[in-house]
């Protein structure tokens, strides 16, 4: 998984949790879609910083998806504050889709 992080184990847990967050239109989760770019953990301040994108910048589902990512991480890492930044500097493209995701979309 092509996600940048400063804490590998916590990132693996976060990504496993985020597999429950679906893009409602595509029916594929945000991790397999490759929407998550970076997850950093500030253990001293108990904060999580997520940098992610959407398949299109003006996706009407944008708020729902980012809201779901926030809620899932808050419930997985209780008492930690989650901050989400949307980035379109590197626009999402199909090469970010995981092998499982490619298989799902090619069905």
């Amino acid at each position: 998984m092509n996600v940048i992080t400063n804490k590998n184990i916590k990132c693996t847990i976060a990504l496993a949790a985020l597999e429950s967050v679906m893009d409602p239109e595509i029916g594929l989760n945000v991790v397999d879609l490759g929407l998550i770019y970076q997850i950093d953990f500030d253990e001293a301040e108990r904060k999580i910083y997520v940098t992610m994108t959407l398949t299109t910048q003006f996706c009407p589902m944008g708020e729902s998806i980012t809201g779901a990512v926030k809620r899932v991480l808050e419930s997985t890492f209780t008492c930690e504050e989650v901050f989400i930044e949307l980035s379109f500097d590197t626009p999402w493209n199909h090469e970010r889709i995981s092998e499982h995701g490619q298989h799902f979309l090619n069905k």
Partner: protein
Amino acid sequence: MFAGSDNDILVKNTTHKVVLPFYLYAALSFLICTIILFFSAKAFTQHYFHPHILAITHIMALGWGSMIILGASHQLVPVLIEGSLYSTKLAYCSFILAAVGIPIMVYGFYIFDMGWPAKWGGRLVLLAVLCYVINLAVSIVKSKTKNVHSYFIFTASLWLLLTAFLGLMLVYNFSYSFLPKESLKYLPLHAHIGVIGWFLLLVIGVGSRLIPMFLISNYINPKLLWLIYLLINVGLVFFLIKFLYYPYGSYNIPIGALLLALIFFGKYCYSTYRQRIRRQVDEQMKISLLSVMMMLLPVIFLVSITGWLLADKRNVQIVLIYGFVIFFGWITVIIFGMTFKTLPFIVWNKVYHQKAGLGKTPNPKDLFNNRIFIVMALTYHSGFILFIAGTYLVDVFILNFATTYLILSAVLYNYNVIKVLLHKPAKE
């Protein structure tokens, strides 16, 4: 910059409260129109300037086509112009004025009273369009980027304004005869500005954004879209000038420009389809793509009317079919497809916006019955083909049979729309 989940980069969605009434109004208008069509089938064996046909055309163009497009475009403004809708209040005004004005105007046409019903209906519709145009213009001015799609929808809205204004002038012309010719002579102008300037331009502007989005396609080609934009507008302006100042002779240039624009849009859709990442294409997208092909049907009839069939004794029937394949053809078919790509999302966002990520939620496509959608599409196309046959053969029996199919499809469409609108989350 991290800002919790309140990302500044996300544009604000238009509230569902203002959008959903447009969808419901359009769905009911479609049902009412098919019922009127059933009782007015005989009118389709006569001249196209018939009060009932005038009423049916305006229910289809305004109550059905324009209302759903206005609703969807209020919702899709953030996606299309990359900025938020300027005013919800103006959107409400637009809905209320049109919702009151359309039935009054249609009543006037149905009983052929060009007095207060047609005039007041026309005034209210014009005001509704004006609210929409102002709302859209300010939204576009305030948005950070200007893309080809925003030019498409704004230009379309200006053509709609001109259509509504010209329509009202034609109504007044019945009472005061201030135009150089009688109102009937201007009908082709009014109709074509509306169909090509408003519907076609808007459908292409919105479709060129939504089709790649729903198919998850890598294909982008703004240059081709600009070319389509120019062809349609130049063709329409050419038609307008020719109609008003040089009415005799052929309309080859505007028809040619329109045909080229449609071919290029077909190429755009085909390339989008070929380069899609998601292989599986759902029924709603299939029917939307079918409607793109159906755009060519009216052009075939248009060529027939203006060209070699001009002297044919069945020319009146060809004109009737021409109008029918526009409003009941590609406009209705793309509405079928796009209703069930957009409406379930709006309702899903309303119901599950705060619940996403907290447990299993249905997908937007689970909010309506897909089997009923397929039956609706089949019933509809059967009625569509039968109606064309009935009109051409001047056969009331076939027309009644066809309209029964169309009513059935409208009932099924309404069933699914209401099912989506009334969706409630399952109790835990």
